């Protein structure tokens, strides 16, 4: 049976995708046009890329769907999470990925927290410190290492894993990962939602986004790497070629 929207984690509501008000759509489209014009002046390949991104923005303006909108202000999910956690503000990111493996297998891999750093780029290490407790060390902007302790808040084999940081952590966050068998026997779906209290509020989020360390991008890439690892046994890379001469 297909799941109903009631079980969808926050941020993946199955309602209409159009979340831009009309004036914002006009601005988005105009922004796209401006990018196009800037591109026209710059010319060359970066110009062409800008032009295409401009075109993508115009398309967003036309369709009214705007993932980038979250940059400019908290959305309803962010506000709800902040309220639930008792934080001054919250940023919620959710993303799903389809994996060509049964949900039970994906759950089992994920439940072993020491596996997570193999596909989560910013997580340097996770040590399981007790039955329900683990110590996470992440590499933040500028390579600074930050650690926190987390406690499992839900663990349903083959179905759900959730955790939250202990009070007083440097970066307060919660995570919830749901595993479901996909319809039609097509492997499984992993739905991940991360909420965190942004350091420095909205501004910090923007800065983080610009340095590509922002969890919205991170969660998407990390889930893709999880998928690669489970489906192929390795994580695709174009790693710079080595320097040792061939034998």
């Amino acid at each position: 049976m297909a799941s109903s929207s009631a079980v969808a984690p926050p941020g993946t509501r199955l309602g209409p995708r159009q979340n831009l008000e009309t004036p914002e759509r006009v601005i988005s489209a105009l922004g796209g046009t401006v990018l196009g014009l800037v591109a026209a002046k710059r010319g060359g390949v970066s110009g062409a890329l800008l032009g295409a991104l401009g075109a993508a923005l115009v398309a967003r303006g036309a369709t009214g769907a705007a993932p980038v909108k979250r940059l400019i202000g908290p959305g309803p999910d962010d506000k709800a999470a902040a309220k639930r956690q008792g934080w001054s503000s919250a940023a919620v990111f959710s993303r799903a990925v389809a994996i060509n493996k049964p949900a039970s297998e994906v759950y089992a891999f994920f439940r072993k927290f020491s596996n997570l750093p193999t596909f989560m780029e910013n997580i340097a290490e996770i040590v399981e410190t007790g039955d329900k407790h683990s110590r996470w060390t992440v590499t933040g902007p500028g390579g600074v290492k930050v650690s926190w302790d987390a406690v499992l808040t839900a663990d349903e084999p083959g179905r759900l894993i959730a955790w939250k940081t202990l009070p007083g952590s440097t970066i307060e966050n919660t995570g919830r990962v749901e595993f479901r068998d996909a319809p039609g026997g097509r492997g499984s779906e992993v739905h991940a939602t991360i909420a965190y209290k942004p350091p420095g509020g909205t501004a910090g989020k923007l800065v983080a986004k610009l340095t590509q360390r922002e969890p919205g991008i991170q969660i998407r890439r990390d889930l893709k790497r999880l998928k690669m690892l489970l489906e192929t046994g390795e994580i695709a890379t174009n790693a710079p070629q080595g320097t040792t001469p061939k034998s």
Partner: protein
Amino acid sequence: MRAVRWHGKLDVRVDTVPDPEIVNPRDAIIKVTSTAICGSDLHLYDAVIPTMQKGDILGHEFMGEVVDVGSAHKEKLNGHGLKVGQRVVIPFTIACGSCFFCEKQLWSCCDNSNPADNQDIPDALMGHSPSGLFGYSHMTGGYAGGQAEYVRVPFADTGAFAVPDHLEDEQVLFLTDIFPTGYMAAENCAIEKGDTVAIWGAGPVGQFAIRSAFLLGAERVIAIDHNPARLRLAAGAGADTLNFEEVDVLDALAETTAGRGPDSCMDAVGMEAHGVAIDNVADLAKQKMGIAFDRPHVLRQAIIACRKGGHVSVPGVYGGVIDNFPMGAVVNKGLTIKSGQTHVHRYLKPLLDHIEAGRIDPRVVITHRLPLDAAPMAYDQFKNNQDEFRKVVLKP
């Protein structure tokens, strides 16, 4: 090692760079014995495909000898590990073999071969990311290409295809791309007995498409180009030819099909159409200003020419969004459009059989065999002297 690197628009150089090494368990390192320059490389040379970076190693049509393999081959995972010393051709599309798309034989749609970070731009521009490709910009992987002495081949246990020793390199090299590309494009024409197929572009892809269309049972093939030698080669394969500089293509096609139009129409030209048609001149201006990637003149023409209920097959490469697309004709004439980067893996064995049986000789497209160091000249000539430089094979 020596490798052909992209330094910017119309600027490729042969540089000395570090040798590649095994990174992942399923990798292999190939010592390249033959590698070709493709029409797709011209789109990079002309800098109309975004996300190239200075220093990128070019080339996606290559073959050679396995000189090193990752641990998965040694353990013979999947039962088909490669061995050092094997002679192989490498599909230009990189595919994992185990995702939803690979299992459906849609190899160029593989979910897992484009590194996660490189998928951001295609995700934003196209909704989803295609597979990784060798030497073809960072939005399809940023992988080092095959116009080099050595190449690292990811997922080599799925991609690398062993070829028999009694066939020389030039007989099997084009299994890497243009023969499967022409063949898949002909398949996408859904040819039925008695059909007439019109093919725009008599470049290497068009040449294989013409021959494949006949293999698949076309009654008549019409090749359209303006390079006389390319049209002569098409005629040699049994095609009728149209020179778009001498005739009005739409009029000529209507005339020669008694008004009905070709049963299927193929765009084997892609985003850099030539000609002074008014829409093409406007597209050229937009491309020069950097506000458009593509000049879809041929695609528009193919749609208008195609008979009602017919198939439009598009092997030609496009990169972005296009203006003035005749959607009304597609809907009201009930056309089917099929396209794609080629699912090369699907065609390796069946097309090798055609070569072995002598039903097609891929060597006919080759005009030049040159050392790797001649690449800068070869790119320049392939762009500016197309009629003479039809297909260049480089020998590293």
